[in-house]
Structures are given as structure tokens and as C-alpha cells.
């Protein structure tokens, strides 16, 4: 595994330092310029806009707030109790999905990490939820499964449990969103942990078995330490992407009731495309970027550490 990492592979090939190389290393320039244009330029503009009072509904309001009032968008947001609810929603949603998908993802990965008839088909079935278009997953859950009169849950409540049908989206909106998103992200964690389990060298497992290690000690002392990097990568990537969950909320609850399922991306969507408040939406965007960057910096550290290990 580690030996096929980029750095390791190139070091075995002699780096050609010819004049050809001097020119060809610039083949990466178009990609870098393009990425700067579509990601860094908008990022810089977000920062700039967050210090303006620009509102598309008030064409005159395009300007910088002024040095004395430049933080107004931020102070308005921070002094709004809704912001803290939205921030909590974002963190609670992400945290719950990460925990649930880790528990079930680990379970599925362990179950799949044994040869048995039907393993390939089980694996294929288990990864499928991740491939479902998020908005399609959302309408399927909302209308076909959870709908209180026509959904399958109505049958479960009335015929199986023998109680009144309950509309879970109404009773527990946040938990419904967490459930749907977790259903989609369990396979993601499972796939990465399975790759980790399958890279565990056979000799180590056999040696530990010879030493008389039971399944539990084996898992805690051998499997888990080996999986550490895979767990870190899976969970940090998941945090980054689940922080940006939007489609499921848009379809299932529209952020409601009230703001009970509004997360940062949904709030930014409302500020920008319902209130047309470019300045305020950008200031919210800065908070979204800060959150994602915390996870991203940790992730890049893991990747860098792993690449350094790969060269040794």
C-alpha cells in the first residue's frame, strides 16, 4: 500500500533534470491557473463581500461598509441567537452522522472482511446508498418510506407495531435528516475501513493468533492501530463533506420547522437567494469556510504524514 504512494514511486525513478524537464514541469500551470480562477478568486471575493452591505434588492447598496463598521455583518450574525442554533444544527448533524456512519461502517467492514459466498454481491449492495443522488434519496425517504399515510413506515407503524402512524419528519425532523444522511455515508466509511482491513498483513494476523490472542484483543491491539490512518482519513473527509450537506435538507424539511434543521449551507442559500443579501450571505460563508478548514488542515496533516512515511 504505502509503497505505491506517489513520493515513493518517483524516488525510485531518477528525476530527469534536463532542459526538457525545465519546460515540462510547467504543464501543471494551466490546471493551477484554472483552479485559482474557479476556487481562490471566489474565495477572495467572499471575504471582500462579507465587508459590504451589498443587497441585490437595493442596487444602491454595493459598497464597503467603511473601516469603522466593516465588521457589521459579522457582529449582526454573532448577536443573532438564530446563528447559534444554526451553528449547533450544523455541528450536531455532522457529529451524529460521523458517529453513526463510523459505528455501522466499521461493523459492515468487519463483516465483509471474510471470504464467504455472496460477498461480492453484499459489498455491491452495501455501497449502493452512497451512489444514490442525494436529492433522489431525499424524495424516496420523504415520500415512499416516511410519508405518514402512503409511505412504508405507515405500514410498519399500523400493521407491524399496531400503533398510530407517525410522521417522523414532523416529530423528529433533525433525526430524520441524520438518518437519511447517515444511510448515504455509512458505505463511504465502510469502503475506506475495508480497504484498511484488507491491507493488514496476513503474517501479523497469523503471528498474533499463534500467540493466542483472542478476537477482542486482536481487534484492540492489532486491527485498530493499523486502521488508525484509515479511520482518520475517512472521518475527516466525511466531516468536510457532511458540513456542506444541502440537498437532503432542501427536499425533506426546507430547513424547518422554523430553523430546526437549518444548517450553515442552507442558511447561506436563504440569505443569498431569498433575501439577496450578498454581504450577510458572504459573512455566513466565512463561517462555513472556517469550519471546513479546521477539518481540512487536520486531513492534510494526515496525508502529509502518510506521504512522508511512504518514502522511508
Amino acid at each position, binding site marked *: 500500500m504505502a509503497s505505491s504512494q506517489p513520493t515513493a514511486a518517483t524516488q525510485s525513478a531518477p528525476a530527469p533534470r534536463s532542459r526538457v524537464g525545465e519546460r515540462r*514541469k510547467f504543464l501543471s500551470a*494551466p*490546471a493551477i491557473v*484554472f483552479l485559482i480562477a474557479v476556487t481562490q478568486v471566489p*474565495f477572495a471575493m467572499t471575504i471582500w463581500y462579507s465587508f459590504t452591505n451589498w443587497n441585490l434588492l437595493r442596487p444602491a447598496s454595493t459598497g464597503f461598509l467603511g473601516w469603522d463598521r466593516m465588521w457589521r455583518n459579522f457582529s449582526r450574525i454573532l448577536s443573532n441567537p438564530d446563528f447559534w442554533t444554526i451553528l449547533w444544527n450544523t455541528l450536531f448533524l455532522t457529529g451524529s452522522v460521523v458517529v453513526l456512519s463510523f459505528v455501522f461502517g466499521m461493523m459492515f467492514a468487519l463483516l465483509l472482511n471474510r471470504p464467504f459466498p455472496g460477498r461480492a454481491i453484499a459489498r455491491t449492495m*452495501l455501497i449502493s446508498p452512497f451512489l444514490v443522488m442525494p436529492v433522489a434519496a431525499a424524495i424516496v425517504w420523504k415520500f415512499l418510506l416516511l410519508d405518514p399515510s402512503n409511505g412504508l413506515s405507515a405500514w410498519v407503524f399500523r400493521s407491524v407495531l399496531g400503533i398510530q402512524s407517525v410522521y417522523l419528519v414532523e416529530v423528529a425532523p433533525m433525526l430524520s435528516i441524520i438518518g437519511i444522511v447517515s444511510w448515504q455515508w455509512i458505505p463511504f466509511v465502510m469502503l475506506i475501513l475495508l*480497504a484498511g482491513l484488507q491491507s493488514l498483513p496476513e503474517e501479523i494476523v497469523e503471528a498474533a493468533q499463534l500467540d493466542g490472542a483472542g478476537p477482542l484483543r486482536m481487534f484492540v491491539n492489532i486491527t485498530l492501530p493499523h486502521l488508525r490512518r484509515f479511520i482518520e482519513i475517512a472521518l475527516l473527509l466525511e466531516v468536510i463533506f457532511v458540513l456542506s450537506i444541502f440537498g437532503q435538507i432542501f427536499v425533506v424539511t426546507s430547513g424547518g420547522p422554523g430553523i430546526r434543521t437549518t444548517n450553515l449551507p442552507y442558511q447561506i442559500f436563504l440569505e443569498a437567494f431569498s433575501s439577496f443579501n450578498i454581504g450577510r450571505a458572504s459573512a455566513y460563508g466565512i463561517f462555513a469556510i472556517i469550519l*471546513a478548514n479546521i477539518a481540512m488542515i487536520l486531513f492534510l496533516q494526515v496525508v502529509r504524514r502518510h506521504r512522508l512515511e511512504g518514502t522511508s
Partner: protein
Amino acid sequence: MIRSPVLRWTLNVVTLLLAFVMIFPVLWMVLTSFKTETMAIAFPPRLFFTPTFENWVQAVFNGPLLEFMGNTALITVGSTLLALLLGVPAAYAMAFYRTDRSDGSMLWMMSTRMLPPAGVIVPLFVLFRNFNLLDTHLGLIIVFAGMNLPLVVWMVTGFMEDLPFALIEAARLDGANLWQEFSAVLLPLLGPGLAATSLLALIFTWNEFFFAVNLTTRDASPLSVYVSTFKSAYGDLFLAKMSAAATAAVLPVMIAGWVAQRHLVTGLTMGAVK
């Protein structure tokens, strides 16, 4: 590892059962798409029934599904090609002409993929408005190419580094120029890798919703936007048609994912896990 055959078989059955539970919502959606509308809301829900293709005919020929699918196809293919066009040369430089800055550039590219879409949607909207890109295919092609470019660079760099450098040296001794070296030596060997990379880019692009819904209104909207419009459907008689449309939207990517299974992990972690 587990010696008792009873325990082993119990675990096998449990695994298959859990796998069935996980994929059940998808199966239920496909099943519902072949019901009549009245059958779709029947209580108790029917598992066995005479399938009808009425909803599919309705959804495909009487609805706007094909238009949206055409948009999705155009945007997906266009953005994947653009990402390959920019990303493969970059990967070539990263794999064979490393400099002190290559590692930093690679990590920086990866970091751009992790920028939250909500953090840049406002300026993108403004830029699109100024450049007349709102509700155009070209606009989404540019954004999605940017989204997939880091993936392409990371994956293709990995595939190139797995190739023996001696092959390239041999081609150079024969006097091959850059294009000959690429088209005659690298491309045939990279074929499967490029295919896997393209499939993964296709999956991400096809399913994307946030940029799509905010940067298009109707003419260039992809399938994901169309599927989301069912959220405000009223009345009881749309479940089967909705299921047909959703199945049509989900199935191509699901098949692509099954085909690219082996590369899924590499793609999802951008090469951090192989």
C-alpha cells in the same frame, strides 16, 4: 478466523440481510416505478403486482425528463473532458517532473476540493451574472471541471507513477516528442486508469445539486434539479411517476459506481487511500 461453522454461517446470513436492508430503499423505489399510481398508495403496500410501464412512458416521453437528462449528460461529459484536458498534463508534470513545489501544489489542489460550496456560491453567482453564465451549460461545466480537477490530478498522477519510467526513456531514445510519447506510450497504458477517473468524476458531477440549483433556473438545469422539484408535488397520484424519474436519475450513476468499485476508494479519498 472464526472456527465454529454455525457462527460463521450466522454471520454470513446477517451480512446479507444487512446488505439487503441498506439497499432496500433503492429497490423499493425501482419497484414503485413499475406500479400504477393507485397501486403505489395501496395499503397494505403490495410486494407482488402486475408491473406496468405506464409511468416510465409518462416520465420519459410526456415529461421533461429527457431534456434534463440531456443537460446532465452534456454538463457531465463536458466538465469531465475539461478536467481531463487540464488535469492529465498536470499529472504528467507531477509524476515525471517533480520539483520542490510539486508536493505543495498537490496538497493545495486537494485543499481546493474541500472548499465548502456554500462558501463560494455568492461570488460565483455574481461572476456568472456578470459573464452571462447563469443558466448555461458552459457555466456549470466550468464549475464542475474545477470540482473534479483535483481528483483527476491526484488519481492520474498515481496511475502514471505506477508506470515504469524506462518505457518513457525508451520512447525518447527513439526520438518521440511529447505528443508521441503521450499518445503512443502513456495513453494505451493509462486507458483503464483514465476510464476509472472519468467514471468517478461522472458520479460526483451527475449527483451534484447545490451549484446546479443556485446557478441554473430551467434551460441548463441538470436532473438533480428536476428530481428536487418533486418535493413540492401535491396530491397522492405522483409516487409512481416520481419513482420512475428518480430511478432514471439514479441508475446510470449506480451502474457507473458498481463498474468502478475497485477504484472507488482511491477516488473518494483522492489517492490518500489506495
